[in-house]
């Protein structure tokens, strides 16, 4: 495996940034400052970090209700994300989107999504732009969960991307539960990646808690996509550290199962791997300190930002027709 040192650091930087963001958001949510709900990404950081490390700013992603990790990894501003969670005017959506609806179109983030499976056809459409307009020089990474893999959107959109050979990475984050429903009672195949066969596309299983495995499988998929060989379905097997949402104690999960997965925390695993290679602990600590500072700053920014004017709740329903629309 020949991964540049800076890439190794970058992967760790993204993973801890996501973990710290989620830990602090979870903690603040408990104080009642954040309205709505919160689906934390803790435990799945290797997936977003590993896949998105293969993308550039020009590439696109679609995300889910559990989307903070994807958008942070794609370069969204933690300040504006935290401000959105706090319902502030400076947030990405000026308080209208909240946790489940963060997007940054300047960074190719086509939106988290409140509807399970809702982003998958949108990713296929972005893939069509990548093929027709950008000649496969750009790609799309479409994130969704094991639950979404049973929606009609999944089947329709992947078949379409397959038949049109679009440069899309379909990333199924199998965290074993759709809310409280185990994948074992919802999905007839043992590996969701096997469904790729039915759409004539490549399918591969990755260890979703091993960031290097995810990174390398993502890299191969991006290469296929850019060569015009079409989409890849990558199933990343992983686990939520917390429940489905903030208020879910997740008592439906057997303690021994939880224990086994927590022993494979993706950040702990990767940190140990870095130390085993020639990387010094102080370099790792420096990354962790920097991430803490970034999140501290984001929280300060969110706290100090103004609330939106309540009247703006009725604005921005329609985009304005530009003057030159008839040129």
């Amino acid at each position: 495996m020949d991964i540049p040192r800076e890439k190794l650091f970058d992967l760790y930087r993204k993973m801890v940034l996501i973990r710290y963001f989620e830990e602090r958001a979870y903690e603040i949510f408990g104080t009642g400052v954040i309205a709505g709900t919160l689906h934390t990404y803790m435990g799945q950081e290797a997936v977003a970090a590993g896949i998105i490390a293969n993308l550039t700013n020009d590439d696109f992603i679609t995300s889910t209700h559990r989307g903070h990790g994807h958008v942070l990894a794609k370069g969204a501003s933690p300040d504006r994300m935290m401000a959105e969670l706090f319902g502030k005017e400076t947030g990405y959506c000026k308080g209208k989107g909240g946790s489940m609806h963060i997007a940054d179109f300047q960074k190719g983030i086509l939106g988290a999504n409140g509807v399970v499976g809702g982003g998958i056809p949108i990713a296929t459409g972005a893939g069509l732009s990548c093929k027709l307009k950008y000649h496969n020089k750009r790609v799309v990474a479409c994130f969704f969960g094991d639950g979404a893999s049973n929606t009609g959107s999944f089947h329709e959109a992947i078949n379409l991307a397959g038949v049109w050979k679009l440069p899309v990475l379909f990333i199924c984050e199998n965290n074993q539960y759709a809310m409280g429903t185990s994948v074992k009672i919802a999905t007839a195949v043992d590996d969701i990646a096997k469904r790729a066969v039915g759409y004539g596309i490549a399918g591969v299983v990755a260890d979703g808690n091993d960031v290097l495995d995810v990174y390398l499988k993502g890299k191969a998929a991006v290469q296929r996509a850019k060569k015009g060989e079409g989409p890849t379905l990558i199933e990343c097997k992983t686990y939520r550290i917390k429940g489905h949402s903030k208020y879910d104690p997740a008592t439906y999960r057997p303690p021994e199962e939880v224990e086994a997965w927590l022993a494979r925390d993706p950040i702990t695993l990767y940190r140990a791997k870095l130390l085993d290679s020639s990387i010094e602990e102080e370099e790792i600590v420096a990354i962790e300190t920097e991430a803490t500072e970034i999140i501290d700053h984001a929280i300060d920014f969110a706290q100090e930002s103004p609330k939106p004017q309540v009247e703006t709740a009725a604005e921005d329903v329609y985009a304005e027709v530009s003057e030159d629309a008839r040129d």
Partner: protein
Amino acid sequence: MREIKYVEAENEALREEMLRDPDLILIGEDIGKAWQGAFKVTKGLQEEFGPERVRDTPISEAAIVGCAVGASLTGLRVVAEIMFGDLLTIAMDQICNQAAKIHYMFGGQTSVPIVVRTNFGAAGNYGAHHSQSLEAWFVHVPGLTVIQPSTPYDVKGLLKSAIRNPNPVIFFEHKFLYNTTGAVPEEEYFVPIGQADIKREGRDLTVIATSLMVLKALKASEELQKEGISVEILDPRTLRPLDRKTIADSVKKTGRVLIVHEACGTGGISGELTKVVIEEAFDYLDAPPLTLAGKDAPVPVEPSMEQYNVPNEAQIMQAVKKIVK
């Protein structure tokens, strides 16, 4: 001025816009050269613009509209054809939860410039899964623009405006209208979204009619004229946003109003139109507003039963006389 068919006028609009904008593509089931669109609206376009820009899709309505949404967010403009309006139900998440809300939900960062074209209405005995008039469903969703053109002139001018509009537009074409003819200029023109049209001027009563009902109301009004009743016919053309001013001005002038649409009455657009009349012109009314709508039943196949369920000229005349008396 030359006269062409509704379907030809629409085809011209698509062709002109594709020539103008290389980023405009069409997607849908059977729109390519094998079939040319279920009602031939896309005839010749795949031959002219190629299979990359005129794309036949699998039977996947959610993916068709979702694909249009995603492509429009990333640099293309898309007109998606849904083969029958009834099948919009299969794409509801992408239309109502995704396309309609993206501009708002993400704080105005971007917009979704797509047109979803489809047909509707009882014509041709297609039965309950291919004949519904579902426009009111979409009028109820903030973020969508809903259009129902009744003439070749309007369909061309409105489709061109819809394609250049930055918001998602649901564009309803009545099946019966495709082969109707009307005057269409050779030179380029647009019909603005949100602007109603007075199809006939009159004194005694305003008939607000949509789509095919405009044609039926025009016929009825000629008969009524012989009996000395002068009917004004107002075609909203765009159902969301409604042109409140033109509606108000007409009703203020005539003092009486009949609303006619093919969709079943309960929950139909007539309720919204009545609300506009009451809010804008209540003090000018000389009689209560009435509605003539399709029966509250699915559309049956047997030809006489199919037409029994939708308003006709005789019923329009009867309703007008009831109000005028």
